[in-house]
């Protein structure tokens, strides 16, 4: 069970679902179009500055 929980947690981190959950709890907002739009705006900044995928 722990193994599958870890796999799921890794996938959620890779696919930025955890980052969105952290954003919601940090900003104290609900899951919504508006909060997701704000999250995307914030995470785009990091995506633009770092090479997120290697060769």
């Amino acid at each position, binding site marked *: 069970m722990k193994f599958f929980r870890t796999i799921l947690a*890794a996938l959620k981190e890779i*696919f930025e679902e955890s980052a969105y959950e952290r954003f919601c709890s940090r900003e104290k907002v609900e899951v919504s179009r508006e909060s997701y739009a704000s999250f995307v705006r914030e995470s785009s900044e990091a995506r633009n500055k770092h090479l997120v995928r*290697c060769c």
Partner: protein
Amino acid sequence: MKPSLRVLLWIAIALLGALAVATIALHRGEQINALWLVTAAVCTYAVGYRFYSKYIAAKLLALDAHRATPAERLENGRDFVPTNKWVVFGHHFAAIAGPGPLVGPVLAAQFGYLPGTLWIIVGAVFGGCVQDFVILLFSVRRDGKSLTEMAKEEIGPVGGLVAYGSVISILIILLAVCALIVVNALKQSPWGAFTIAMTIPIALLMGVYLRRLRPGRVLETSAIGFVLVLAAIWGGQWASQTPAVGKYFTLTAPALAIAIIVYGFAASALPVWLLLAPRDYLSTFVKLGTIGLLALGIVAMHPMLHMPALTRFIDGTGPVFAGKLFPFAFITIACGAISGFHSLISSGTTPKLIRRETEIRMVGYGAMLCESLVAIMATVAACVLDPGTYFAINSPAGIAGQLPETAARTISGWGFPVTASGMQALAHSVGEQTLFNRTGGAPAFAVGMAHIFSSSLGGQAVMALWYHFALMFEALFILTVLDAGTRVGRFMIQDALGHVWKPLGRTSWYPSILTTSGLICAAWGYFLWQGVRDPLGGINSLWPLFGIANQLLAAVALCVATTIIIKMHRAKYALVTLAPLAWLVTVTFTASWHKVFDSDPRIGFLAQARQLAAAGGNARLIFNNRLDAVVTGVLIVMVTLILLESARQWLDILSGRKAARVSETPFVVTRLAEEQG
């Protein structure tokens, strides 16, 4: 486990690894099973991880479980987040695993399976993993600073400037070569072109779905996108068999090149959420699944390798790319053994997620071992093909011949029998018009992968589907590197131009976005166009240039690492980074010398320019060869500068002329250690 049993277990693993290495190294004249390669790799990786990485962690780096990491000290729920080590491992592996370890080993298979396999294993254990590990730790001890920032702080302003210049030049060449691989894989392939074209509307749909219908449900959206991509593969078969549709997707190399340049520009200028992010999710989903599937496939099917251990082309006359085994095998394999680009990831997002210093060994060293295993799988995929088939796919028309019969005769004349009718039948079975002259590595990998899977899962009847699945998988994540890289390149140019005129540095100002997107696309687009028009297929000149650039970036990273090690008063262990650095410098400088000055026109850029000029050849081709020579020269000069600057630092510190002062953040005791015992 009892200590005595543990010792016995490690002796057994080491002996099995030694037996596997001896088998692949000494077998001649008979085919061997692919599992020997996998066993040699896995056992060596296990021993390397257990002993060498532990030695580095304990003696050289002195990893400290009590030292708070930036993820803990600067935790903000955004960039800095203490994260479970397995989660960081998955995140880091997903970021570093790209097309390089798949393409490089396939191209290097022209020398036979042995040189590539040995270098992938040895290079990873002593070079690539070490680089990723030490750079990750040094970035963690500097609050997650980037490689260029560390170069500036530890080596000096010249180091910072050269690192910046290296990164941007290398990025341009990487993007060009990535685009060229996709062009060569999709040219005259309506099925492949249709499938990949469909991934763009699928990504747009995913973007809208994520934004409007199910905000934040990325895994769910990616799964839906994956199902749609599978449907697009089926649709591709229909498109290729329907002339009215197929003609729109039967594209020449120049037409595909223009389409990809336009795509790169759009991905750079459009909002991230609309195209870039959903494609990234989709490609990661497919990538992780397919790598796992390929590993299972190789173990379950354990195919025989048809490629000999060594081919006659170790003498430098190979058709896939020209140049002798040394140094060209090493710069061709590149990412599967050591990749400079990993140092950018190790000093990017990953250091901000590390919870405890002691976990860095598993993330940095361990993830690179997994990437190296992917390269071994690519070697297997290439070497399960009959050598004649392999060379027919990977030899450019300029060398093997334009017509199928001519090419088959030429390749058979090299000692690797192949017939035009056999190749026609193979092309037909994978749903292509032809498989001759499909240079770049991706089609050969796809045929190899389809061959492995179709031997049990669905048989020959679904060979075409497996082939296009593999092709889609490669093209999809190569294009992801392309769009993400174009965007990063755009930001780097905006950063630099912002110093000249402030508005150009504003990342949300559209005139600046369009200008800098245009600049970066023009830069890599130029090299792509050059590759497309090259009579030798483009890969012959661009892949070595990419390999040299990538390995030089690794040299920059190892210079930074060695400087820090000497400043840490750990000079007696400096060989850990100095040895791979010396090897990389030897390999890349030798390869660069050959690429610029070799008198063989197939190898040396200047010799080819002279030959073209003497024959009254195309002025553009002559210029391109001279430009490639200049680019190689500039890269070498930049790395020489950083080497000299680093060596000066080392001598000053070791002779006592200069105080050894590292710019680590001060030690703070972790709270996590107390919480977790």
